[in-house]
């Protein structure tokens, strides 16, 4: 993106995964947890 001198207007995803706080800047429709025993 830097090479193209682009300005990132936003980041989107259908789902984020893992820790929700890691994806604060991402527009997403849902979140998938990681399941640990």
């Amino acid at each position, binding site marked *: 993106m830097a090479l193209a001198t682009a300005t990132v207007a936003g980041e989107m995803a259908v789902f984020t995964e893992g820790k929700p706080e890691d994806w604060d800047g991402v527009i997403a429709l*849902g979140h998938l947890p*990681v399941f640990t*025993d």
Partner: protein
Amino acid sequence: MLTTLACTPKGKCRFLEFESIHGTVVYSGVARRRGEPGGASVASPNRLRKMKGRRMSYDGRVFTVQLGGVIRKLPLFEVAPGVKIAIFNMLGDTEVVETAAALLATRLPTGAEVLVVPEVKAVPLAHALVGRQQAALRGRAQGAQALHGELPRNRSAQHHHRRAADALRGWQGRPSGARQAGRPGGRCDQHRQHDSAGCAN
């Protein structure tokens, strides 16, 4: 269980195994190339038994997600000892792709001109998103054209007709609404002429 043999024109083959879990086709193994130790060019029962040891662990549990009105049960796979993730793959699930695109389109950042997605599972989503964005722009343009196409005879009505069409096209060259208050006398040209003619509206 679905088994297929994928070969290149040069005869290099890979033995692929797929499994349908709750309607989701899951790719679960790659055999060795023909000629390599244990390699085979046909799906023999012995090959299937050997491949089973390389499959991700799945115990039948699912994680249910909802996108708009679409519900999917995602299989939980153990990807590392003690770590399970919900497998989400929308490639081929057109209902999920269209629904996700419709929902994301409403949250698309204003001013976005280009959509960049990683290869390859997100490509259908980008396609659906762009289609919706273009349809929205086309609708606005057609609405503006339709408004301009049938101008009323009354001059004042024409003025409001054009302003509505301009608003549909997103054109802001002429002050409207709150912007109009910034003009001399708080009126646009048309309305100032209206005022000078002695009309209260």
